[in-house]
């Protein structure tokens, strides 16, 4: 399976607030982070939980600066996110 993202890529987490099960934590929605590594491929839980067909897709460790998640803080938070939760960060948000 080809991964859409490489370590170092800037990505933005989806802003969507779906009515069904998801493993994109609320605190990371809409935030911009950096791909740390590819962790292998797994079926999307959002689809599995609804008994929909779900093939394996890439999962990444994505690092966010606390200030981008919460507005302040000097730490980072690294989350494991399915590719469907991510899109390339718009250029103006890339630093």
């Amino acid at each position: 399976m080809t991964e859409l993202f490489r370590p170092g890529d800037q990505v933005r987490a989806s802003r969507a607030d779906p009515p069904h099960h998801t493993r994109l934590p609320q605190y990371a929605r809409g935030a911009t982070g950096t791909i740390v590594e590819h962790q292998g491929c797994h079926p999307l839980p959002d689809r599995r939980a609804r008994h929909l067909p779900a093939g394996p897709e890439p999962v990444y460790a994505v690092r966010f600066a606390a200030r981008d998640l919460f507005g302040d803080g000097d730490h980072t938070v690294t989350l494991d996110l399915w590719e469907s939760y991510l899109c390339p960060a718009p250029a103006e948000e890339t630093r």
Partner: protein
Amino acid sequence: MSAGHAGPAATLAARVRRLEGLLEQRGLVDAGELDRALEAFLARASPANGARLAARAWLDEGFRARLLADANAALPELGLSMRGGMQEQRLKVVQNTELQHNVIVCTLCSCYPLALLGPSPTWYKSPAYRSRVVRDPRAVLREFGFVLDPAVQINVWDASAESRYMVLPRRPAGTENLDEQALAALVTRNGLIGVAPV
């Protein structure tokens, strides 16, 4: 969130019992087989396993490099594995250094490397720890009595998907003469989660 066995958790427990009953009824598993498998797994699941990994990593640079690069491939060197459940789970070991400190959490539920750390402590599953450690880890560590140098950068790892995490603590100063067993005895479960120095 499984705060108690009410609501969705109770429904799930009932479904699991029903499934277990059907498996036994159809002769796919013996009565008690699942209980025995669980008991055997839990008997081996202990923070002593994580402590052995840390002690070996402190003493053996090659092992440390292999553990950090691909923990699942390195575990069998100490007779350990992440194969205790239904499928092998990916393990990522994150190393504390003079400038970087790591803490693990599962904000969505309570994912945790049981085989290496034993059953998770109650506080690890509490909404308070799960919500606050991502927001203000330094304050949470202070509440554990662990005051981290302000110059040290904290990275919180939220096990929100299929990987499990373990922290490799820093080797304490003044332990140059200790052997592997004595070093392992210094390592605590909280150190392997990242809420204690070691």
